């Protein structure tokens, strides 16, 4: 008997919804730099929200409602109602909002929530934003000071992601997050230990190459440059060395997220109203064709794999899009293996061959099958809730041909983004530039 997975039939939206504006802060360690130390939740979210409104051509008064995402508001911000506590910062005082938290998947559900709100007909124009201080926590009873969060404290609080009744007690589910997908891929595709190790390393190398071209990314020094500085002639020799120690059964240090601070936001509106909202803006709206979602609590074996299979099935079924139509793919890869596993399950990379594409550099921004053109979680950074919308920010810029030095060779028309997180939610969606 296989793992039990109930399935959902997803239906088309009641009306078409499009992305008309995006905003994003740099991903950063705010506490480490005098010019950013002391930034607050309202300032971070407010900046991203206003940049998205500016990009869309809308005034805050045009926006009907906003969603707010933050993975850990109580521990990191001392907030119980984070959407209300930042409400006065971006010109929407008095308008309704709601907070949601799906941990690292928050920024992907941010699109799901916003699109549903407009597709239902209730609202015409909606803001959805996320903010996270992943690298620091609020100093209690001080208006703006923060202190760095240690890895020990971070791991203590991430244990709260897991079911208290059984999962923490049984010890399996919460500890399999680091290596389960790698074990699954290696076993089912028949890779050797060396091939699996090199594949994980090349994902990190490719991610960093992408981030090196992105001014908002937190780590921009390529692994080739780092290897040379450490005296290695070959980057893969450096990646296999003790400079890049094993932190998991398969996972090395380079394959772990760079937890940091950041915010990102998006404006969506009814597609048939874009002319009203966008005014004299000339960029093309990007339609959200559909969203697929699933969740496997961490006691479920191969939670990421099983939930991704179901979410991807839904989004292809409801949109009618074929895998070969996807021009660029984003995966929330706070554990680097996600990047490979998600792309192959989605059919963006061929079954059993994805690892070769990665090791040949074909998934870098200038390759023929780009993944995470912003550098993903291991190089762009991981401001937990905000990462999903940061990926959307990047996808939108690629699709407009506005990605600067990191622009793909061929401007993508259709993108898939696969969110993951929260032990474990999967939310995947397809967007397409309107003609």
């Amino acid at each position, binding site marked *: 008997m*296989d793992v039990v997975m109930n399935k959902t039939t997803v239906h088309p939206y009641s009306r078409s919804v499009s992305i008309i504006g995006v905003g994003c802060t740099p991903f950063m360690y705010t506490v480490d730099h005098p010019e950013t130390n002391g930034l607050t939740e309202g300032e971070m979210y407010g900046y991203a929200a206003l940049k998205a409104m500016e990009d869309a051509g809308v005034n805050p008064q045009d926006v009907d409602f906003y969603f707010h995402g933050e993975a850990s508001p109580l521990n990191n911000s001392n907030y119980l109602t984070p959407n209300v506590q930042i409400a006065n910062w971006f010109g929407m005082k008095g308008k309704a909002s709601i907070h949601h938290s799906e941990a690292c998947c928050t920024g992907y559900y941010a699109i799901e929530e916003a699109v549903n709100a407009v597709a239902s007909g209730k609202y015409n124009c909606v803001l959805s934003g996320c903010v996270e201080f992943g690298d620091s926590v609020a100093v209690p009873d001080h208006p703006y000071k923060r202190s760095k969060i240690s890895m020990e404290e971070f791991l203590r609080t991430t244990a709260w992601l897991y079911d208290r009744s*059984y999962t923490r007690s049984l*010890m*399996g589910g919460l500890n399999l997050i680091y290596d389960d997908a790698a074990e699954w891929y290696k076993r089912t595709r028949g890779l050797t230990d060396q091939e699996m190790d090199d594949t994980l390393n090349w994902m990190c190398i490719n991610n960093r190459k992408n981030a090196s071209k992105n001014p908002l990314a937190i780590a921009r020094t390529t692994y080739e440059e780092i290897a040379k500085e450490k005296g290695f002639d070959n980057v893969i020799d450096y990646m296999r060395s003790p400079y890049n120690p094993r932190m998991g059964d398969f996972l090395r240090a380079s394959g772990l997220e760079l937890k940091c601070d950041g915010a990102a936001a998006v404006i969506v509106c009814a597609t048939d109203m874009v002319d009203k909202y966008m005014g004299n803006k000339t960029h093309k709206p990007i339609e959200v064709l559909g969203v697929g979602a699933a969740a496997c609590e961490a006691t479920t074996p191969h939670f990421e794999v099983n939930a991704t299979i179901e979410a991807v099935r839904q989004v292809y079924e409801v949109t009618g899009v074929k895998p070969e139509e996807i021009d660029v793919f984003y995966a929330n890869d706070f554990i680097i293996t996600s990047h490979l596993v998600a792309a192959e399950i989605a059919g963006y990379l061929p079954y059993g061959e994805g690892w070769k594409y990665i090791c040949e550099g074909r998934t870098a921004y200038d390759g023929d099958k780009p993944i995470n053109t912003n550098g993903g979680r291991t190089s762009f950074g991981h401001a937990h809730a905000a990462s999903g919308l940061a990926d959307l920010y990047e996808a939108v810029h690629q699709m407009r041909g506005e990605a600067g030095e990191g622009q793909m060779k061929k401007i993508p028309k259709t993108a898939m983004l696969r969110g993951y997180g929260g032990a474990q939610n999967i939310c995947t969606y397809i967007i397409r530039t309107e003609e």
Partner: protein
Amino acid sequence: MSESPIKLEKVVETFYENLEKGKITGKRCKKCGTVEFPPVYACNSCGSWDMEWVEISGKGKLHSMVMPAPLSMKPEYKDLGKFCYGDVEIEEGAHLNAVVRGISKKKRREILEGKGLPVNVHASIYQRDGYKTVVFDLDEDQ
């Protein structure tokens, strides 16, 4: 009118109390026979909420093996001895992520280079700090 089978029942507490009594228990669906382990209110296979307690046999199969490492190891896990994490299918059909004792890196290599997965395991009651839980052990003949 028949009485509703839906009860505000302390399933979690009962599960752990049963472990104190030496019994490993799940919930079996009266409609389709699926066993939920660990136990919950409703059947995830058919949706029925008419469930009954059942003692599981403890026999199972291990379908995957991941070794503990710096990120997935805690000081209190040292008492487990050599172990791995993996997908365990109990004889009654349920799959869960669990700890399986008796597997070292060397043993994993022997299994993978030998007869391969799955291998037979059996459930054991294991004392943690303040409560008992369930782990699995590799069968001696594996």
